[in-house]
């Protein structure tokens, strides 16, 4: 039994200040400019003239404590013990000693952690749990990330793209990676309606909540002794019913798979943030190396790299050349699925006579 009297709760996260490198603490809010010292290497200079160097390496995000300890050791050796993680799950080592950069980089690379991801590179793929931990997954997460980044690792360790390129992956429509604003999004999709477990439904779920959960109204009170019916033509496999009721599984080895989305962005630089748009509606799950997904992503990256102008993010490039040209250049087939039929569909029809031939 836990001793409740000693129980500590609601203390919140530790204060970040204790984790800041002394140079950072001293120059907090006083940074003046930064320079790139090559892929994965940043130098920030303060008003005071102080400098802090950052060495960024890739991470599989799924890290064993053994690897974290390894990073901690490196931090001790080169960075007075200071390091951080980035919003895209890379590791950043922070030091005020420029001479430490080279050996640190070297050790990281030797240990299998490429250094890069800065500037006009492909940074780490933001991703989710997949078959490693989630019940909802229409595909794996870490495995696909591994395969795609194996193929694109050079784009992480170099900075020769027209602009930043952000790839994200989510293993179901819940989109925990919030992949909907990515240059390239890899999204797990189901393609079959839930298989209702009629016996389980009343035991584990509230039926009215279940019925209300379906955004298309596909779930109806059951007929002929069934608890609920799913009108199959009205289902678009979003999985929301499954989230609220475990007795509505959607998994289907042959029909689950992956869709690819392109042209989203988050930053407000130049243009407003954009949603990613459908490029490829479906690619079957092909573990362990997902060759078709890898090929599709690499193809899009390479066509973009070749055709976009300097500073043009994926979506900016596509808007400049127009979607028809995007499909032409990438060789991706345009299908009925590309045409929106959800709420705002009417706003996506081509309502102008401006056309390229």
């Amino acid at each position, binding site marked *: 039994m836990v001793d409740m009297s000693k129980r500590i709760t609601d203390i919140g996260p530790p204060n970040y200040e204790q984790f800041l490198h002394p140079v950072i603490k001293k120059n907090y809010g006083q940074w003046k400019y930064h320079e790139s010292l090559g892929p994965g290497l940043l130098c920030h200079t303060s008003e005071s003239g102080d400098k802090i160097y950052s060495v960024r390496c890739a991470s599989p995000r799924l*890290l064993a*404590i053994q690897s974290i300890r390894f990073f901690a050791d490196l931090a001790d050796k080169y960075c007075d*013990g200071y390091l951080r993680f980035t919003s895209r799950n890379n590791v950043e080592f922070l030091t005020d000693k420029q001479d430490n950069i080279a050996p640190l980089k070297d050790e990281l690379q030797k240990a299998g952690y490429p250094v890069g991801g800065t500037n006009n590179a492909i940074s780490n793929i933001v991703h989710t749990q997949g078959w490693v931990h*989630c019940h909802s997954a229409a595909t794996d997460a870490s*495995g696909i990330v591994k395969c795609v*980044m194996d193929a694109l690792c050079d784009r992480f360790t170099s900075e020769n793209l027209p602009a930043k390129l952000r790839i994200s992956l989510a293993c179901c*429509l819940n989109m925990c990676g919030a992949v909907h604003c990515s240059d390239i999004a890899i999204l797990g999709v189901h393609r079959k309606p839930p298989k209702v477990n009629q016996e389980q439904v009343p035991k584990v779920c509230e039926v009215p909540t279940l019925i209300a959960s379906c955004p298309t109204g596909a779930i109806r009170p059951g007929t002929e002794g069934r608890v609920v019916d799913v009108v199959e033509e009205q289902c678009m496999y979003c999985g*929301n019913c499954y989230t609220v009721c475990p007795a509505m599984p959607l998994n289907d080895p042959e029909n689950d798979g992956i869709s690819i989305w392109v042209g989203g962005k988050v930053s407000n630089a130049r243009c407003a943030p954009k949603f990613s748009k459908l490029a490829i509606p479906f690619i079957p799950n092909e573990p362990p190396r997902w060759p078709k997904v890898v090929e599709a992503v690499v193809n899009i990256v390479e066509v973009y790299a070749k055709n976009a102008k300097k500073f043009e993010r994926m979506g900016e490039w596509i808007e400049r050349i127009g979607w028809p040209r995007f499909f032409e250049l990438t060789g991706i087939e345009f299908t009925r699925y590309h045409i929106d039929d959800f709420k705002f569909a009417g706003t996506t029809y081509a309502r102008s006579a401006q056309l390229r031939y």
Partner: protein
Amino acid sequence: MADNGNRKTELIDQLESGPWPSFVKEIKKAKETSPACDDLLGQLELSYNQKVGHWKHGGIVGVMGYGGGVIGRYSDVPEEFPAIAHFHTMRINMPSGWFYTSKSLRTLCDIWERHGSGLTNMHGSTGDIIFLGTKTAELEPTFAELTAAGFDLGGSGSCMRTPSACVGQARCEWASYDTMKICNEVTHEYQDELHRPPFPYKFKVKCSGCANDCVAAIARADLSIIGTWKDDIRQDDAAVAEYAAKGIDIQKDVCDLCPTKCMGWDGSKLTINNRECVHCMHCINVMPKALRPGKEKGAVFLLGAKAPILQGAQLSSVMVPFVPADEILETAKELISRVWDFWDEYGNNRERVGELIQRVGMANFLDAIGLDPIPEMISAPRDNPYIFFKEEEEE
């Protein structure tokens, strides 16, 4: 290639090769300290074989007095993989900006070696430290050790979720407010709402120091606080000349890409019509030594971002166009309390704030939270004539 002991994991072993760091290698490393990892490998191999996941749906587990922070997870083939029959994750609230010392990381590792799989996510998509996989009985002891070490759980369920912040003023010259501080203070302010789910659905807060939005706040936070400035861009002409000399084509790379075309370059002097600047950051991004955000700093407050479930994905939209830097915390608290009051009362089950705004209409929402409508809140006025005139407006 792979040292996988007795267990045959032919498929996932193929994920050990290649230049990118391998999560399979990580799981194998963790086997050193946790037998659960062996079963995890086994179940993953099964999933790779069958092309389907093998986790059961949810399950409510947690630590005492908390309604969130733990995701219950059970294998659906526990006979085969008994060590992961339970395999819950714990979400631990990371420090602002994901800064650590080697010591603090080792403390976390040690706790997790004692009580769990030794596997983590550094970090989860919301930003938490994820302790990936343990048994129900280990939850409370882990929690006790964590809090003793100064860490606490993050959010899950229909609560305030773990807020996050970009690196901000700690290492970025562009942060127009102290993102890490605000994030930390907001997190501490709402510990109760974070740990004891009180809402119709989740509520996320993210803080970016400028319009580059390095934590993707506008795409995935119900409340997105994005730094900006009000006065003129600070300009160093000598540094501009230096960039030009080094090969930046000021006209093409900077002026032509400015969204409002408010910049001019005559070959030697860069001029900015700051009144037309929309603070997009592009010019500053290209020439960080030459251009800097102004000194009258603050932030835009936006509401409503979310992933697609149910009404489609949304980006946050402008609520308060400018809040001075020193009023951000106060404004955040005030706005949050007004939004929560209304959402609590009128939000449907599993309805995010952004969906609520769309359902009731922004004008009604503004009435409800007591903000005046201003044109900054919209990209364009309505184009349809279907106006609900209110009684008081008529004569």
